[in-house]
Every structure is written in structure tokens, then in C-alpha cells.
């Protein structure tokens, strides 16, 4: 069984904006969400900047009950706000606690790359090592279990279909969309809330800092620190936040007269098996090309139909390899290569949330007919100089924008690629 899957709701909690209208404006204007984080100075991090959504705790107090907030770390707050927003944006109301109706045909796949490590670092480790297990209270498990956010969302919205969390490092958010779409395509659900969330915690970022994969060259100019596609890219800027897409079968959306943003045309997931140069931390170039081609085949389009590439493009040395993979997989020349950019240039690398944050950007761009600028790459990397004309440094109006391909690659040599198409009605 193969059914068409459309997107009928969106929610976003990003470092440069919270909420759809603000996010679209930030994307259009190239507003950076990267700021200096004083705690990282204090703790001797090499990278002292990060992307953290602003004003979330105040917002969370309006969204959630006091007892719910006591059990919600930053990843929960980001993810649950985005999920509630996506649900309401799709035209549904938040149910009350004493309404026993369950949405049996609606589920969730909400992933995270690292999970509730702030709760582990700030609560569990000090209390347990201090012999005070008893003082942990009842909210530790739900804040550190991988499925904590999807579990909380299911209770907030009375979801009754599959409710789960996926985790595939930096491809998590993109993978969640593909997994949820597959469930709807197969007739197992009518609606799925899909996306990713990642907390804002120095405990998450520390391991990457020690690996020397974070940017350490622009601590005094935070907005210039995230430099995908540039010759001066020196590592990624850690990000955080959440985004959720409300996916729905076309039948269900049409039946209830829902507003449709775009269609999930197809997608693919694979792994390079840590071969041909692939490793825990580097992609097998064969599998990346294969994943892109499989997504195009799944979407039943020709490579030439792709108008815009929303790349993984983190600002490490891997960016030129990624561009080479796109050139090969799309069988493109410098003349035919689509527009390419990196949302991470504005918001940093949201890890498990990245694919979802960037997919929401894709949907807003499809609807609005524009490509957001890719910041901080005026000095395009010499290996991709031939394709420099495809990189927008200012917002590029694209009234004919119809098809976006979005990728996410992660530690473990895993790849995800999804294709969105503007809904023409």
C-alpha cells in the first residue's frame, strides 16, 4: 500500500526564532542565532559560542502545568512546545486532561541525538555519587529515557498510534520524517508528529569540543562562527532546539479540508558500513551518493527536477565532499547544479534536531518561494569554487521553487535524504 503523504502542520523552536512567522522572517533576513555562552568561557571550552533558543522557559510556563514543568528538561521543553504548535497549526485543539478521547490514528516519531544528558549531569550523577539516590524523585527516568519527549507529547495530545523516538546522531530529525511518512504511506497511521529535539547543555557539547570538531576561531564574533561551505570553516557550532512536522495522509487532509503546506515526495535511509573511507565519524562516499539516488528514485522524479539542496553542510572539512556527492548523484554540471545552502550557517548544528529544524525551513521556503542565504561563506571553499554561483549570500526569491532535497548525515556513517514538493493544490 502506498499513499501520498502531506505536511499540514509545523512547529519550531530554533536558536534564531521561536514560532513559524518569526522563523520565516529570520530565515529570509539571514538572522544568526549564534551567541556567546559565558559558561563555556568559565569551563575552558575551546568553542565558546552556541545556538540556543531564547525565551523558552517563559513560554513553557504558558504552555505547561507546573507539575509537567518539574519533569521537563530543555530537550523536553523545546520538543513539546514544537509539537503542540505543530498540532495546533494543523487545526487540532489541545485536549483537556479529563477528556478520555484518544487519537488512535495519530502517533509520533520524535528523536534525539543525545537525550537528557543535562539531567544526568546536573541531577543524577551528583546525587547518586553522593549516596542520595532517594532524593532523585520521580522525574529522572522520564527525562533521560530516549523516548521521553515522544512519551510526554503523547500525553499532552492524547496520541494513540505508534509513539516512539528514533536516534541516528545528526540524521535523527530527517530520519524521523522518513519513518513517520512510511507509516502513513503503509496505511498504519493517518497522522504522525515527526521531528527531533536536542537540549542546550554543555554536557552535550563537551565531547565534540574535545574531538576538536567545533569552531574555535570566532568566539568573539559569534554570528560569524558558523561557516559552512567557506574556505575558513573550522568546525561546527553546537546548536539546540526542536522542530516538529505534522505529517498526514492526503486522504485525511482532504477529508477534513486541512491546509496543506507541501508533500513528502520520498526519501531514503542507509549506512555506509564504515567502509570505503567511512568510519564512526566520516561518511562512506558511496553510501551518501546511493542514499541521494535512492531518495530521488523513491520520489519518482528526475535529478534535474531538484531546485534547491538544503545540505547537511556543518562547516567541517566534510563540506566539499558533500558537495561532490551532490554533483555526482544529481549528475550535475556547474551550469545545471541547483541552488545549495546551509541552514546551520544561521542556527548552528542542532544535532538530533538539525534535520527537523532544517526541514521546517524547507517547507517555509517552498511555501514562500525563496532560498534563505547561506551565511559566512563569501570565501567559498576552493574545492567548490566552480559551484559558487549556486550559493545564495542574500535571500534569493525563487517563485518557481517546487522541489527541495534535504539531507542529514550522522556519526555511525548513517545517511538520510528526503524530498519535499510544494503543494500546488
Amino acid at each position: 500500500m502506498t499513499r501520498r503523504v502531506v505536511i499540514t502542520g509545523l512547529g519550531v523552536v530554533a536558536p534564531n526564532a521561536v514560532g513559524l512567522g518569526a522563523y520565516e522572517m529570520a530565515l529570509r533576513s539571514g538572522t544568526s542565532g549564534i551567541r556567546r555562552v559565558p559558561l563555556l568561557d568559565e569551563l575552558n571550552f575551546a568553542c565558546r559560542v552556541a545556538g540556543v533558543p531564547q525565551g523558552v522557559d517563559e513560554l513553557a510556563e504558558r504552555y505547561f502545568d507546573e507539575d509537567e514543568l518539574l519533569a521537563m528538561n530543555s530537550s523536553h521543553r523545546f520538543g513539546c512546545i514544537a509539537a503542540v504548535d505543530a498540532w495546533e497549526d494543523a487545526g487540532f485543539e489541545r485536549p483537556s486532561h479529563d477528556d478520555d478521547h484518544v487519537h488512535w490514528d495519530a502517533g509520533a516519531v520524535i528523536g534525539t541525538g543525545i537525550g537528557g544528558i543535562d539531567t544526568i549531569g546536573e541531577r543524577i550523577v551528583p546525587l547518586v555519587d553522593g549516596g542520595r539516590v532517594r532524593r532523585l524523585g520521580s522525574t529522572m527516568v522520564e527525562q533521560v529515557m530516549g523516548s521521553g519527549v515522544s512519551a510526554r507529547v503523547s500525553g499532552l495530545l492524547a496520541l494513540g498510534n505508534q509513539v516512539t523516538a528514533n536516534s541516528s546522531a545528526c540524521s535523527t530529525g530527517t530520519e524521523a520524517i522518513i519513518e513517520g511518512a512510511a507509516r502513513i504511506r503503509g496505511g498504519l497511521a493517518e497522522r504522525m508528529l515527526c521531528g527531533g529535539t536536542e537540549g542546550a547543555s554543555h554536557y552535550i557539547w563537551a565531547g565534540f569540543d574535545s574531538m576538536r570538531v567545533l569552531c574555535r576561531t570566532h568566539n568573539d564574533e559569534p554570528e560569524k562562527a558558523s561557516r559552512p561551505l567557506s574556505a575558513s570553516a573550522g568546525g561546527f557550532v553546537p546548536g539546540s532546539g526542536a522542530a516538529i512536522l505534522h505529517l498526514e495522509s492526503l486522504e485525511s487532509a482532504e477529508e477534513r479540508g486541512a491546509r496543506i503546506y507541501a508533500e513528502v515526495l520520498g526519501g531514503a535511509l542507509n549506512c555506509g558500513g564504515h567502509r570505503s573511507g567511512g568510519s564512526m565519524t566520516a561518511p562512506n562516499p558511496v553510501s551518501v551518493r546511493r542514499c541521494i539516488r535512492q531518495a530521488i528514485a523513491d520520489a519518482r522524479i528526475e535529478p534535474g527536477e531538484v531546485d534547491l539542496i538544503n545540505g547537511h553542510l556543518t562547516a567541517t572539512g566534510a563540506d566539499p565532499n558533500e558537495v561532490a556527492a551532490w554533483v555526482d548523484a544529481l549528475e550535475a554540471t556547474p551550469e545545471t547544479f541547483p541552488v545549495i545552502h546551509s541552514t546551520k550557517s544561521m542556527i548552528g548544528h542542532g544535532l538530533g534536531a538539525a534535520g527537523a529544524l532544517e526541514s521546517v525551513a524547507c517547507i517555509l521556503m517552498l511555501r514562500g518561494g525563496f532560498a534563505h542565504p547561506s551565511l559566512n561563506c563569501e570565501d567559498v571553499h576552493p574545492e567548490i569554487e566552480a559551484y559558487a554561483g549556486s550559493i545564495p549570500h542574500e535571500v534569493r526569491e525563487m517563485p518557481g521553487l517546487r522541489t527541495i532535497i534535504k539531507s542529514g548525515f550522522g556519526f555511525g556513517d548513517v545517511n538520510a535524504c528526503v524530498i519535499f514538493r510544494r503543494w500546488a493544490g
Partner: protein
Amino acid sequence: MSRDETYAKVMEIIGRYAKNKDALEGASEDTNILEDLKVNSARLVDVILDFEDEFDIEVADEDADAVNTVGDAVSLIEAKLG
């Protein structure tokens, strides 16, 4: 501290966890914490920890297990405070 003062502090703590905010309005010492106020049973652990912090007492597990109503909680705390 008078029993009324203890009651007020107990209600403030339990109120954080109560799903039934209406029942909170008309609560008394006879009000059942789980059934009337709809506090999630798992959260009783947190309610007890909050009592410990607020009143600077320690509550043994068996004492905590005997708390069903708001009045039970007030009596337990008064006994601990002596």
C-alpha cells in the same frame, strides 16, 4: 507553627502537582490527594521530598506510604516537627 499554617504550606506544595485545580479550591483536610486532587501517584515521591525541604524533616518510606489525605500529611509533618 500552627496547624493552619502547616496546612497552607502543604496545600501549596500539593497544588503544584494537582491536575484537578477546581478540587484544590474546595479542599479540606479530608481531601484525598490521589483521588480528589488527581495527583499522579508517581509524583507522591516528589511531594514528600518537597515536604522534607520545606519543613526540614525526614520522612521514612513507611510514613510516606500512610499519607492518603491532606490531613494525613499535615498530621505527619506536625508529629515530625514535635
